[in-house]
C-alpha cells in the first residue's frame, strides 16, 4: 500500500481507538455512579 495512505490510515485508526477507549471509560464510570 502507498506509504502516505498507510500512515494516514494508521493515524486514523489510532485516533478512533483513543476516542473509543475514552468513551468506554466514560460510560463505565457513569455506570458505577460517577459523572453522567
Amino acid at each position, binding site marked *: 500500500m*502507498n*506509504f*502516505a*495512505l498507510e*500512515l*494516514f490510515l*494508521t*493515524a*486514523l485508526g*489510532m*485516533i*478512533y481507538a*483513543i*476516542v473509543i477507549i*475514552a*468513551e468506554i471509560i*466514560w460510560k463505565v464510570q457513569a455506570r458505577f455512579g460517577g*459523572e453522567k
Partner: protein
Amino acid sequence: MNTVLALVILYNVLVIGGIGFYLTQKERRSGQIADLATGGRNANLAMFSVTLAITYLGSAHVYGLMEMSFGLGAIALWFSFAHTILMCVICLGTGPWVRRLGCATIPELIGDMYGPQLRTITACIGAMVVFGLVTLETQTLGIGISAISGWSLGWSAVLGAIFGTAYVTMGGIKQTMWVNLVNAVVMYGSITIAAFYLAFALPEGWEGVRQHYMANDEEFKLSIFGTPDLMVGFSLAAVFSVVFSQSVNQQGMAAAMSAKDEKVIRRSLWIAAPINGLFGVFPVLCGLAAATIPEFAELGPKLAGATMVVSLLPKWLVILLQAGFLGALLSTFAMSALAPATIFAKDIVGANIEGGLTRAEEKRLIRRVIFIIGALAAALTFFNHPNVIRAITWLFAWLAPLFFIIVAGLFWKRNTGVAFTVVICSWVINCTWSIGPIKQMIVSILPGTAALENAHITAIVAFVLTTVLYSFSKNNEPALFSRVGSDDQPTVGVA
C-alpha cells in the same frame, strides 16, 4: 509585493472581513450586543467541533511537526495523538463541567470554588501565561509570512499581529468560529490535494520515501511506535505535558463555554478528535520526505519541509496551503489574544468593581485590551525570537496545578488553604527548576530527574500535594458537584 503573499492576504481579508461585516450588520439589526467572550452561548455541533479542533492547531502543529518528523520520524505523530487524548479530556470532562457551571473564565470557576483572592491570583498568572502564548503565536505568524515574502521575521511578525488583532476585535469568539469553519474546509482540501500531488512531484513518489529509510536501516522512522526509548522520551512526555497543562487552558475552555449545551460538547469528540489529530499527518509526511532529498535535507530540520512544499508544488496550491496554514495560526492567535483580555475584563476589573461591568462596557474594555495585547506582542516579537517549542512547554507548566485543584474542588472537597498551598508551591518549584545552576545541582544529586521538563515537575508536585494535603486537611467544604440536586445549584455565571 510577492504574488503568493498578496493572494494569501487577500484571501484572509475577504474571509475575515466578510464574516466580520456580516456579523456586525446582524448585531445592528437585532439591536443586541454580542458577548465577545462567549458569543451568546449558542454554538452548534459543527461550529463548536471545528473551533475546538482548530484552536489547538497552532504553530507547533504546522511548523513543529515538520521539524520533529525530520529527525525522529513518524513517531512525531504522538504529538497529535496527545492532542486527541486532550480532546477526550475536554469533551468528556473539563468542557461539560465549565459549561454546566456557566462561568466565562477559569479564574471565575476557581473563584467560586476557593474565593476571590485565589481568583485574582490565578487571573494574573493565567493572563501572563496566555499573553506569553500570544507572543509565540505572533512569532509563528511572522515565520509564515516571512517564508512566503522573504521579509525580515520582525516586520513579518508585526504584520501578523495586525492581522490577528483585527481578526478577533471585529467579532470575538463568534467570528472566530465562523472563520474557522471556512478555513477548515480550505485547509483540509489543500493538504489532501497537496499529499496527492506530492506522490507525483517527489522524485520516487511516497514509496521512494519508504525505500530510502529501509535502505538506510532506519525503518523505525516509518513506524508511529518508533523505538522503546523514543516512546518513553518523546511520546509519553508529549502526552503528559499536553494533557495536564491544556485541559483547563482558557482558550479551550472559552470554546466550551460558548457551546449550546453539554450534549454538544460530548458529541463533538467524534468530530473534533479526527479534525485535530489527522492534520498532523501531512506535516509529518513532508518532514519525512524532505529528509530523503539531499537538496532540502541540507537546509536542516526547520526549513527543509517548508521549502520542499514551496519548491515542488504549483503556485496555486502553495497559495491555498499557505492561506489555510495562516488561517489556523490566526485562529490560535485570536483565541489566545481573547483569553487574557477576557480574564482582565471579567476577573481583574469586573470582579473588583461594585456591580461589575455592563455588557457594552465589558465589550469595549475587551477590545481595548486586545489592541494593547496585539501591540505589545508585536513590539516584543519584533526584537525577540525565542525557541517556540521550549517556550510553550515552559508556559504550559504554570497551568498544570490548576487542573488538580479544579478536579479536587469539583468532585472531592474544597479547602482554600490547600488550593493556595498547591498552586504557590508548584509555581515556586517551577521557577526554581527554570534556573539553570539550581536545576544542575538537583540533577547532580538525583540524576534520574535530568529528563524531567518543567511541565512534568509541576504536574507531579501538584498531584502529590493535592492528594496528601486534602487527605489530612480539616474544615473542608463539600465539592461543587456534590451540591447537585440540592437547592444550591452549582451555577457560577449565566448558563
